[in-house]
């Protein structure tokens, strides 16, 4: 038996190809939206992977340092370092801001890293060009997504930094590229006020008789000095010695240090479940709308194509064609349309993904699921046309 569906498609291939192309663009947008969500999740995991930590110690009762602000004294890490099972504990700061370079500025997450090197928690684990930070001040390593180059001069607050190294895929959970600078500089950047604000603060402190006591020389200077320095960090990144359970060490930190400590799975839950949950729902809604629109388009096209040959269908029924042969013809056309659309959509998504400013991750599993979803949508969308075709009275082929 010949395939009526394939013959019809070959006969009106232009209509099918153009419709499939339009549907494909829609499917491409759908796949890209799924890729945006996967990219957000992957960015979050990359952030955790690249931090090199087994535990994140943050301010008590906060979800810091990525989902909420967290402030810790910068000497707390010493106590954590002394706890059983802890291999290393280092301070880290995170500050999302506009980093200026010449006439342009780039939104970036500025990471303050404690002295150390590659392998120290918080540091970029590898570079694609240049070297790691070796000086205590005014050097920076930037992710290549910032567009900065080796030797560029960056302005962060009032200080200038030389880019000495470039890294890759070091991004925040929002997809902002990272810029690594020494911890002291980062602490200053978080705290530093402008000159007018500093003058105003000093004036107010000097005017306060509690701080400016006639009988206590040097007290005012000490207070002002304390106001001009920042002894806070956002988190302590902890690595564990082999054989120690992260949850057990985290419990110990919570109990004895009265701080909050998160293990890697807990941090993933915070990032994926809370930080990008709203964005995920938003994307989910878009996916549902796009699926409904795709189904409506397929249903409309297949219905129109069926109505175009309703007389021929009446003739087919009159001369003894089985209902299932006619239904199969319509359903096969819908599936073929979906197949063409999926191929076009997959190619579109694959080629357009790198053009998006945020990371778009197209997983093979998503593509396979998308393919079957398209087929299911096409089969469902063809039901209206099949119902109409099967209700055609073969008598319509006979005049009168």
């Amino acid at each position: 038996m010949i395939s009526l569906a394939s013959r019809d498609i070959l006969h009106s291939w232009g209509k099918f190809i153009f419709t499939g192309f339009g549907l494909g663009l829609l499917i491409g947008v759908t796949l890209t939206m799924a890729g945006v969500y996967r990219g957000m999740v992957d960015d979050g995991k990359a952030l955790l992977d690249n931090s090199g930590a087994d535990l994140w110690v943050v301010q008590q009762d906060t979800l810091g340092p990525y989902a909420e602000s967290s402030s810790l004294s910068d000497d707390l890490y010493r106590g954590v370092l002394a706890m059983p099972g802890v291999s290393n504990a280092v301070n880290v700061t995170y500050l999302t801001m506009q980093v200026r370079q010449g006439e342009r500025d780039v939104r970036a997450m500025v990471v303050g890293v404690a002295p150390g090197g590659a392998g120290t928690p918080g540091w970029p684990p590898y570079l694609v060009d240049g070297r790691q930070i070796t000086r205590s001040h005014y050097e920076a390593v930037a992710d290549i997504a910032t567009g900065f180059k080796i030797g560029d001069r960056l302005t962060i607050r009032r200080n200038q930094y030389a880019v000495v190294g470039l890294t890759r895929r070091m991004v925040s959970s929002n997809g902002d590229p990272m810029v690594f600078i020494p911890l002291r500089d980062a602490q200053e950047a978080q705290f530093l006020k402008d000159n007018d604000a500093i003058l105003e603060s000093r004036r107010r402190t000097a005017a306060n008789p509690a701080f400016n006591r006639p009988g206590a020389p040097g007290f005012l200077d000490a207070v002002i000095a304390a106001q001009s320095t920042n002894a806070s960090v956002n988190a302590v990144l902890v690595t564990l010695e082999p054989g120690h359970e992260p949850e057990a060490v985290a419990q110990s930190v919570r109990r004895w240090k009265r701080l909050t400590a998160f293990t890697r799975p807990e941090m993933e839950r915070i990032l994926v479940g809370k930080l990008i949950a709203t964005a995920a729902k938003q994307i989910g809604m878009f996916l549902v709308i796009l699926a409904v629109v795709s189904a409506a388009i397929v249903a409309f096209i297949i219905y129109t194509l069926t109505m175009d040959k309703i007389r021929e269908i009446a003739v087919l029924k009159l001369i003894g064609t089985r209902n299932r042969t006619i239904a199969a013809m319509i359903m096969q056309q819908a599936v073929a349309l979906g197949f063409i659309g999926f191929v076009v959509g997959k190619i579109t998504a694959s080629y357009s993904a790198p053009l998006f400013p945020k990371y778009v991750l197209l997983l093979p599993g998503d593509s396979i699921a998308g393919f079957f979803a398209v087929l299911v949508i096409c089969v469902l969308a063809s039901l209206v046309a099949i119902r109409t075709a099967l209700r055609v009275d073969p008598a319509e082929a006979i005049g009168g």
Partner: protein
Amino acid sequence: MGAKGIRIEGLKKRYGSGDTAVDALKSVNMEIAPGEVVGLIGPSGSGKSTLLKSLGAVIDPTAGRMTLGDEVIYDEGWKVRDLRALRRDKIGFVFQAPYLIPFLDVTDNVALLPMLAGARNSDARARAMELLTALDVHHRARAMPSQLSGGEQQRVSIARGLINRPPVILADEPTAPLDSERAMAVIRILNDMAKRFETAIIVVTHDEKIIPTFKRIYHIRDGVTHEEVGEGRAVA
């Protein structure tokens, strides 16, 4: 009449019920022998289309008896179970417009019926080519319907009606869209095919120019048939 052909006795068809009932067919009696071509004529609303649909097993008569070949297909409310298979295997249709399947070439338009009946594609196409040759359209075998003239389309439509060698062919105004010359050619072909394949052919027509070509004509008026036998001008 012999074992083949079609016989209709006291066929009735009523639409609706009660006060709104309409008797479209009141008393239809016909008998067409194998190889015979008869005309069925009548004014609009006389019941021609209802009769054609009843004969084509598309609608159920209300009463009467129909015999196709040696098989009773309807008898006072009883009917054969598989009407679709009956239409496919025992009845050929030729329409006013050819209604060829636009996405199949000429050969496959004709070969489709045996394919639907389960014949192998190669066998079905060989039978189609045989018929197309007999109808002198074999040179257009690979053409699409849109590439054919009106006369060629109608000949392909006749080939499709004949492909399963049905005992009866119902032709609904087959010459309506054709000029005189082509209309006469179609009638000539129908006569040839009727003789060649021992098929009974009923031609429903309004076409004045072909009516004299029938040896027997059934007039239908107000749902009642009347047979008229004339000299006719049987086309050789």
